[in-house]
């Protein structure tokens, strides 16, 4: 076993998220590479949720099906996780409560109540895993004390004691050979950070000069909004929770007009309400940055689940023709760079840029090396106006220099009606109206020239090519590694629109094309067909609201190779 898959499952509000945070930190401190993701129901208490942690000495960044150690706090975990529990899964918990013969009995609840609070089960669990993994006992206990310090000495002590009990049980289980874990010991310690998809987008936005956020709460899009609020003092970000999504997008467009760099973060249903606002950005050639964390629809759908189902919406939303760019990061590095780039490109081309993530990605923690801050910069493409300034002057490139009201002596006039070079309403149909339509259309080519090249993962001389976008990156990469077929590679698009000009040739090099998407119909496949005429030989689609696991991808891919 060169890595370990640990899963905790409990009700909402039972605190398993705190286990996630503490365990990750402890394991990382010890030198392990870690990964964690969560899946949860749309409720605040009750139900059944789980967190999945992977620990390894090598990089580990994908969601796997198998569970090595399962700590269920509730009986419901068994049916909830039935597809992931195998004969090899070690299950640790309150045997009586769980009513399951296979369970290695640890009386979490009793220990916790002994220390005075049922919530201490979480510290017991942290201690237990630390013991199993043979982490440094003092480090563990001190760390727990530090974490709880702000809640007062007593609570800190009690938690540490609960953890200590867990720790002992853990070492005991190992020493008594009841549990044998064959895990590597990390040799070097990397100077990495635990960064969630949310953090990566928020940091990238800050790096890109994002100075305000207009949003209306909606899971899972709220995550980025909340992160920006958290850093608002440090980074100087104006945070405004709007009355609805329509206000958010209109405030954002107007904010850009007035010189700021707003972001909007939402999910499919909220974005649906921004359709007219997208079109406003298109007509006024306004920069705009919208982050959509996707979840399954239609309508309210499954609010806390994941899907790559909003690509079509992002592609076609807004009436009328206008250019846009759509990013879909699959790694924290890409998320950081693209979120930063979104602001610069939105400003450069005066277009809406959409960043498509999903619940899985924003809620997953990856250990990530420090982002390269030398590469990033804030490019403000604005000009100081003079008396003759014309906001929509026709230029060769289609881009007109963008002024800001109050910066220079010119008038900056922006109109949602068809307008002339001054931004004033016109009905000169065959004159300036057509010229404006063509001007806006022209920019699509310009954006295309700067599209991100899709990343090839695997052999250059591939014969089987798996095409993917967004958050499935790591799962497919690990599946390819494990299948270990020298002719199979992945082409991953972190920009899904406009497609990079090499797309067609890269696809045509392959003999077999396999599409992997976390949605019902293969929306990206449709886009590729439309733009290149290329059909896929196989489509691997999942749409039950959960991310692909490495194992099921391996199976599906092998099946079609």
């Amino acid at each position: 076993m060169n890595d370990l898959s640990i899963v905790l499952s409990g009700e909402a509000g039972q605190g398993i998220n705190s286990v996630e945070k503490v365990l990750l930190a402890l394991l990382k401190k010890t030198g392990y590479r870690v990964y964690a993701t969560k899946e949860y129901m749309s409720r605040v208490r009750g139900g059944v949720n789980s967190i999945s942690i992977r620990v390894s000495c090598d990089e580990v960044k994908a969601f796997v099906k198998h569970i090595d150690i399962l700590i269920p706090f509730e009986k419901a975990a068994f049916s909830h996780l039935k597809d992931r529990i195998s004969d090899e899964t070690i299950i640790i918990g309150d045997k009586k409560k769980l009513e399951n013969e296979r369970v290695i009995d640890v009386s979490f609840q009793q220990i916790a109540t002994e220390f005075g609070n049922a919530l201490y089960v979480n510290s017991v669990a942290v201690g237990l895993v630390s013991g199993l993994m043979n982490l440094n006992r003092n480090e563990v206990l001190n760390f727990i004390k530090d974490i709880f310090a702000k809640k007062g000495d007593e609570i800190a002590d009690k938690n540490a004691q609960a953890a200590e009990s867990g720790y002992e049980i853990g070492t005991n289980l190992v020493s008594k050979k009841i549990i044998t874990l064959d895990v590597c010991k990390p040799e070097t310690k990397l100077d990495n950070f635990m960064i969630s998809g949310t953090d990566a987008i928020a940091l990238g936005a800050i790096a890109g000069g994002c100075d305000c956020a207009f949003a209306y709460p909606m899971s899972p899009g709220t995550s980025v909004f909340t992160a920006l609020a958290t850093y608002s003092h440090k980074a100087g970000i104006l945070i405004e929770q709007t009355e609805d999504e329509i206000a958010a997008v209109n405030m954002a467009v107007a904010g850009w007009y007035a010189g700021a760099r707003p972001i909007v973060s939402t999910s499919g249903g909220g974005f649906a309400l921004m359709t007219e606002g997208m079109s406003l950005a298109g007509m006024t050639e306004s920069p705009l940055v919208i982050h959509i964390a996707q979840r399954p629809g239609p309508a309210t759908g499954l609010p806390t689940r994941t899907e790559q189902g909003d690509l079509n919406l992002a592609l076609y939303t807004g009436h009328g023709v206008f250019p846009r760019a759509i990013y879909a990061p699959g790694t924290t590095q890409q998320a950081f760079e693209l979120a930063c780039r979104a602001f610069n490109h939105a400003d450069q081309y005066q277009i809406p840029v959409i960043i498509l993530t999903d619940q899985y990605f924003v809620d997953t923690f990856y250990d990530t090396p420090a982002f390269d801050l030398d590469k990033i910069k804030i490019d403000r493409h604005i000009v100081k106006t003079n008396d003759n300034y014309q906001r929509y002057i026709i230029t060769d490139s289609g881009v007109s220099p963008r002024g800001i009201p109050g910066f220079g002596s010119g008038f900056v006039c922006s109109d949602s009606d068809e307008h002339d070079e001054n931004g004033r309403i016109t009905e000169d149909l065959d004159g300036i109206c057509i010229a404006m339509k063509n001007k806006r259309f022209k920019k699509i080519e310009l954006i295309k020239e700067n599209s991100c090249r899709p990343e090839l993962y695997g052999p250059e001389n591939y014969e089987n090519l798996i095409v993917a976008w967004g958050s499935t990156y790591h799962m497919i990469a690990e599946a390819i590694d494990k299948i270990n077929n020298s002719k199979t590679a992945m082409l991953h698009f972190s920009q899904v629109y406009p497609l990079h000009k090499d797309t067609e040739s890269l696809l045509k090099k392959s003999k077999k094309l396999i599409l992997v998407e976390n949605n019902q119909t293969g929306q990206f496949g449709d886009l590729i067909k439309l733009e290149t005429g290329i059909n896929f030989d196989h489509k691997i689609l999942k749409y039950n609201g959960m991310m692909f696991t490495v194992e099921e991808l391996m199976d599906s891919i092998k099946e079609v190779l």
Partner: protein
Amino acid sequence: MDKKDWLNNEVDIAWCPGCGDFGLRNIVAEAYADLGLKKEELCMVSGIGQAAKSPQYYNTSYFNGLHGRALPAAAAIKMVNPELKVLVQSGDGDVYGEGGNHFIHNIRRNADITVIVHDNMIYGLTKGQASPTSQLGHKTPIQVDGVIEEPFNPLAVAISLGATFVAKSSVHEKELTKELIKQAIQHDGFALVDVFQSCVSFNKINTNQWFRDNTYILGNDYDPTNKIKAFEKSLEREPWPLGLIYKSDSKVSYNKNIPMFENDNTPLYRRNRDSSVIKEIMESMK
């Protein structure tokens, strides 16, 4: 700049001859001139409608956005660029109908913007359907049996939302309208000026004559600082009171309430960020 300088006379004005919008345009330009505004410090905002075409007809920067969305746009512009004076001119349908939710929440938000609503009690640009302020019984091609919905009372609602500057005028009272607009611009916070305006093409009921016959100007004895009295006043009809209905100095505007702008009015576009901030935040994710 004097009034002439504010008016853009190079464009073909799309309003009907005799439309009250012309009058308001003149009054607003005079108010700008009287206040000695500089052209670089003004930004006008509107939605879509006949009234909302107004910004086109001045020499000014403007943001002529979507139908119903004048207020969020105006508020955002002021919030990120507080050096600008932001003035909205839009229609009763735009601000109270399609834009109703923004009316509520921007009064709550209290950004320092001035909102002039051209209240012609009709949808002008779309050719004469009822607006939220159309009076009971008003027949139109859609309301064939006459309006049955309670007319929207912008003043009462604004007062109940905690607005701190609520005024009512009529385009036939030029001086009063100008004075109210000037005060509104000078007021710190959301300032509403709802102005009766005649749509000569589609509202044959609420004409200039009707405005003359059905309004009166509040006397000096009226105290606009008493909220309850102001509410009561805002309910009066036939005649409708014109003037400053309610005013309070009890609040400061949005930007003054947030730390970022506490001692620093610099617009966001002139602020710079040190990339060390990102390092610092990242450190917290160790």
